[in-house]
């Protein structure tokens, strides 16, 4: 599998570490909603198909990347920096 890191370019997946599902929203730091916290920590969609994921380019620039990957075909559909709050969905 090859991931096109927006900073380093196309790199082998062995340089990256999977850091969990990307679709989760962490409750606000001060939130006391226990079920929201439970959902954030434990609930996973585990999609068979296009899947939101967070990967870290740990063997490269160490950026966290928001990736849409098809879990059936392993095709990487889009890669953007996780810290980009704007929608900058570039084709991978």
């Amino acid at each position, binding site marked *: 599998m090859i991931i096109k890191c927006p900073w380093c370019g196309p790199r082998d*997946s062995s340089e990256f570490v999977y*850091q969990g599902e990307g679709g989760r929203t*962490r409750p606000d730091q001060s939130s006391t909603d226990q079920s929201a916290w*439970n959902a954030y*920590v434990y609930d996973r969609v585990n999609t068979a198909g296009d899947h939101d994921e*967070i990967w*870290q380019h740990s063997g490269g620039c160490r950026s966290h990347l928001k990736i849409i990957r098809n879990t059936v075909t392993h095709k990487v559909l889009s890669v953007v920096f*996780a*810290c980009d709050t704007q929608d900058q969905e570039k084709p991978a």
Partner: protein
Amino acid sequence: MSPRRAASGGLIDRSRTIRFTFDGQEFTGHPGDTVASALLANGVSLFGRSFKYHRPRGILAAGVDEPNALVTVLRGEAREPNIQATMLEIHDGLKVVSQNRFPSLGLDVGALNQLASKLLGAGFYYKTFMGPVIGPLKGTRFWMFCEHLIRRAAGLGKAGLAPDPSRYERMNAFCDVLVVGSGPAGLMAAKAAAENGARVILAEQSARLGGSANWSEDTIDAMPARDWAAGVVADLTTTSNVTMLPRTSVWGYYDGNTIAALERVTDHKTSPRIGEPRQRHWTIRAGKVVLATGAFERPLVFPGNDRPCVMLASAAERFAVEYGILPGEKVAIFTNNDSAYRSAMTMQEAGCRIVAIVDVRTDISPAARAIAVRTGAEILTSRAVTSTEGGKKLHCIKVQDYDIRSGAVSGDARSIDADCLLVSGGWSPVINLASQAGARAEWSERVQAFLPPKDADGWVGAGAFNGTFSLEAALAEGLAAGGASAIDVPAVVDAALDIAPAPVFEIEAKGKAFVDFQHDVTADDVRLAHREGFQSVEHLKRYTTLGMATDQGKTSNVAGLAIMANALGKQIPEVGTTRFRPPFAPVTIGALAAERFGEIRPERLTPMHDWHVAHGATFYSAGLWHRPMIYGLPGETVEQAYVREVKTTREAAGIADVSTLGKIMVQGPDAAYFLDRVYTNTFSTLPVGKARYGLMLREDGLVLDDGTTWRLGRHDFLMTTTTANAGKVMQHLEFLLDVIWPELKVTLTSVTDQWAGASIAGPRSREVLAACVSGTAVDNETLPFMGIVYGEVDGAPVMICRLSFSGELAYEVYSGAGHGTHLWQALIEAGKPFGMVAYGLEALGTMRIEKGHVTGAEIDGRVTARDLHLDWMLSKKKPFVGSMMMDREGLVGPDRLQLVGIMSLDNLPLNGGAHIVEELDRENPHDSIGHMTAACYSPMLGRHIGLALVKAGKSRHGQRVFTSDPLRKRFGPVEIVSHHFYDPEGKRMHG
């Protein structure tokens, strides 16, 4: 002249003779020969014994699809088993031996297995044998003993025990177009792609490029196909943007067009050039892959179809044309399609007598009939071969009437003398790589085989791979696959036969009819699997082992499915096929490892490592780090050494290397605020020039790590982590900053390797520092507990923080890593008048147990802060990572495993990992209430002590329980005490 070698012909170099041995006997061949062709030329017909029944086996195929003729290659002491004789090129001095036979290939006692063949059916290994119990004799034991013997009798070659002396290489390559297969379609594709300026790699598993052009009698561009192929190969070889890889098996097709291939660089050479590896493993990243992998001919399933001298028709053709070998004098042919007629013609022209063509079909095409007439063979339509006779060689075949509609065999068997039977059961495109790439195979009624899908992603197919068996169409597909170009499809003259076979896979008659030759799976085994309920293709494969082993079902897959479909009363497409997995062809593990063998982990050494070595340290691996365990004196045991180190440290002073601690710079305007969020306690209130002990939780509320963090400036913090968790903590913090709070202005820098650190502990440690530190005072006022000062030690700038892990008055002295040894030596010198010793991890561990400080042994991912009595560190004034999750049901409550101290009551050592029980039961240990996490002999208490996590441990202080360690056979009484064994008030470190 060799008995089976034709007087002329073949692509071998007859001017040179090569000598090699097979089972110790010397044979000769010529350059261009494989072990298979050279032995066939010498009249050898018996190549091996079968997997289960030890039946004599010969050559079935001529290439990578060969299931029977597996040999072991001897290279010095090393032996490499299960090499296909058809893929192994001969060279002078090559030594091969046959496999799975004892005492010899000709006389094999294992063949007795055939007598027990009723017992050895499919799924034999999955069955449990239970025997009668007669007195002290247990039948089941007897069966288990038999199983041991039976397992030994079955199998392929044996790997050797000697290390492989060969060298292997790895190579990465990138190209626009990778062409797999160098037959006419592949060559055409490579030529077109090269013409377009693409970077092309052409991989061919055989030594000779050209594929089927090497053994066909077709004409391309007004010349013999092999001459045309040789011309194209010569052109491509000199084209700069083309890389030719002969002897290279593409064995894996992975995501993103990542291709794995194995090149046999010197396996065919007597003396490789200096520096040449034996094999080279290629990782090729291709823009596009052209699959021109051709098709495999399938055998027919009928009784006796595994006898030596029964061969695939195309294999015989290849041996005749490419190697100049006649596999028999009187050749019979058994077929369900027209392609075998072409083989008949080729064999007849090569010099064989075709005695009969047995065809299951009622009608055959006029073209086929014309060929048959030309060969002079007797044509027997609506007939089938129902048995073969002979021992290790074929003598005759039995032919009976066959009704293609019902599949019934009838009438008297007629005997036909033949010393070679050529079989053709149709053709299966080699779609393995496409299947690995995720393509779903589609059944073709016309070709009676699985074809690759039309809509491919990343690859395109060409030629027989697509089920395109006409040469002209294959060339056109190759051209198109290579990319649009100005080249025209060359003119072709071929036999123009339609290979579409009749849907006949098996002739049901009495006797063992083999489907999978390599794993000895018969047609009856497939039916047995059906009767026992293993009916899905995946179950069929696993239960019968059909299509497993080194050939991965290359010749057996379709027939097996057809027989199962028939048993189920279904059509083949309804039964489906298994997905092919890598590797397509066997891969040497050495080539995957290449240079990565032996001790390949990197070593992390502290700046002072050489000093430790020079001063008698024994080392301990902590992750990748090498840390001094003890600095033993001559004659000292480990225990004596650490007891001495602890005593001296607690009485005078000791110094330890703490450079391995994880160190992270946390900097930026929001750094203090960020630390408040990640630590359970508050850091924004920490004054500049002070340090604080901090505790970090995971998002789920369990403890992640602990350590001290020093505030060096308003926006600058130096965080320390435990040695083992440095990477994990860094990643945790990076994730939070990058994904959760990108708005925080904080940067993280790992500085673990930039600092050298020494911890000086003990009542006289202040005097040691005072004696060597300049530029700052180190008295209690200037450097209070948790204070930080800057100074110099013998010219080296240092940063000193007063903090203690050992429980003594202690300081950590840091310098730049480059000054590490200099600093260490200066501190050692300064400590001499005060009797300071260097101490290792054992002493460090002992002192921390005496103090009840936790480390990774207790922070095991299952404990909460409260379990470790660190409640006081949980701020109630602010939220932090894990604060909402740490008090969930199950994480609080009196019955949690809590940290306690354990004291041995029988004066014997304790062990980490031992259980704590209320009731001692050596025979049947039960009801563990917790476990020991660490243990040592405490020099200060004069007793064996330890730390443990015990259920409701807090309320058990003073209770007498037992340690129960059945593995190490250590049982004994212990007392649960507070984890603060030594100086619970902390007077010493605050002093």
